[in-house]
């Protein structure tokens, strides 16, 4: 764990990584990645007990599962910056023979990834399974997971929600990236979630709401969420973010969900993001 001043240098650097990675291969999902950067920094540099000398079983460690796998750029950059692999490898994102597949995978043995994701709606179930194994192993560490808000349209999410509450899976902290956007447009226009908080509460979860683009607040929120674990209920953090946060022309729109910037747009984006700890 680093001091706050050091931590605060990371989001800008990771955002530079994200736009450079997506630009280099001219594909990928910058919007959601940019919106969740503070969350990843908080998790990997402050909240979780984890070992960059990665092993699949992760016994005695906190585990993280990314369900909305398309925001892989922010995860890959965070893992590299946390020492899981060399930052130079970020240049291989989505390219032939890379370990940094378009969507996260275990197949190429990238350190930090414990299950493939990308086909939406599956990560919460996997996280719950991992949390149950932690209980069977008397392992008192926690399981963290992130889903998208559009992903809430997948039925499996609600199967998992019901199961976790019924079985008192109280060693899990799930977060929803509540940016209100999905590829085809605003979530409310595509297929409304209506009152998402009420839904999760009705499914038996402890629900908190937070702002995801303020690093100090994200850290505070996750610490609060952890304080709510082990009380018989799974914990849900509804985290408001801005898709594309940090790059003015990408903010708050679904248009940058799944497209890459051109050379000019890249230069514009990088001019807004300070290089703090060094580009890859």
């Amino acid at each position, binding site marked *: 764990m680093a001091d706050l001043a050091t931590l605060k240098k990371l989001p800008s650097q990771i955002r530079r990584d994200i736009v450079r990675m997506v630009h280099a291969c001219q594909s990928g999902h910058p919007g959601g990645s940019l919106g969740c950067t503070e969350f990843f920094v908080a998790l990997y540099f402050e909240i979780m007990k984890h070992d960059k000398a990665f092993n699949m079983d992760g016994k005695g460690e906190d585990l993280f599962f990314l369900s909305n796998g398309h925001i892989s750029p922010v995860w890959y950059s965070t893992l590299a910056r946390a020492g899981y692999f060399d930052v130079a490898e970020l240049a291989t994102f989505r390219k032939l023979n890379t370990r940094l597949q378009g969507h996260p995978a275990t*197949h190429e043995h990238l350190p930090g990834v414990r299950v*493939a994701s990308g086909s939406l709606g599956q990560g919460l179930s996997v996280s*719950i399974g991992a949390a149950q194994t932690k209980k069977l192993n008397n392992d008192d560490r926690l399981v963290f997971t992130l889903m998208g808000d559009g992903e809430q349209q997948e039925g499996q999410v609600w199967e998992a929600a019901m199961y976790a509450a019924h079985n008192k899976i109280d060693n899990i902290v799930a977060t929803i990236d509540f940016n209100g956007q999905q590829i085809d447009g605003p979530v409310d226009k595509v297929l409304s979630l209506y009152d998402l908080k009420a839904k999760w509460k009705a499914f038996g979860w402890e629900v908190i709401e937070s702002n995801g683009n303020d690093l100090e607040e994200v850290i505070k929120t996750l610490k609060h969420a952890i304080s709510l674990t082990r009380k018989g209920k799974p914990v849900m953090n509804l985290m408001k973010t801005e898709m594309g946060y940090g790059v003015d022309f990408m903010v708050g729109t679904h248009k940058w969900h799944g497209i890459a910037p051109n050379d000019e747009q890249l230069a514009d984006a990088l001019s807004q993001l300070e290089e703090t700890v060094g580009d890859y």
Partner: protein
Amino acid sequence: MTKYTFTDKKDTRSGFGDGLLELGRKNSSVVGLCADLTGSLKMGDFQKEFPNRFFQMGIAEANMMGVAAGMTIGGMIPFTGTFANFSTGRVYDQIRQSIAYSGKNVKICASHAGLTLGEDGATHQILEDVGMMKMLPGMTVIVPCDYNQTKTATIALGDHVGPAYLRFGRPGWPVFTAPDRPFEIGKADKMIAGKDVTIFANGHMVWQAIEAEAILAEKGISVELINLHTIKPLDEDAIIKSVSKTGCAVTCEEHQMNGGLGDSVAQTLTRFHPAPIEMVAVNDSFGESGKPMDLLKKYGLSPENIVSAVEKVIGRK
């Protein structure tokens, strides 16, 4: 000449239930997950003896596959139980991404497969599951022939590492293999040696083939019967070796012709040892309600159908 008889009929799903119980006693990492079909899957004894290692998932198969994948992280060996239809078609994407592509050590155990499910009809009689499962890279696919072999195969899966699909059925069926008959995943089991034709069968169809062999022996036709209980990884050497001797093959399975055992054998023979082949399988059709034996007859999976296929394939040599 090897002869197989039976005194007892038992359902293969009970072989799974009894095997899981025995495996659970040997290996404390084995956990059972079931989607509201504990009685049908015969998982009740495991549940009773290991309540902390049994997970009632409710009617939520997609979540079950994901939870099973997650439970492997930290060393558990999940055995999921539901009908074959809900074990495969309903959850194909969950199996593909969270289990197969992720290389998770999940054992997908599927009962009530095929026509012999009987009266429930075509909605539940899946005949495409083996095809779906064998197409997944790294997936082991096993279809044991009777109660004893299903029990042995279940126990063998405890030491097997990686995703696997175990298919079995509902009806009482002749128990004709010895409880101690050797079983090795991926190794074909030659049950009868012969010289005129090789019959490759699995699941309930092994018994149908044994009955066919008796009829063919009366007619002076010498059958080699191979129980290909593992469709993947396929014992190609055993297939090539046998057909090199007999010169032709008949495959028998309670599954669509497209994508099943016959498909795998044909692919092997076409590539390495071209020879005439006939397939006894369901031919691009859904099933329907009825008694198991009546269904097998109507859909062309009776011993008589095997006899005809053998006579036909020998004529093509």
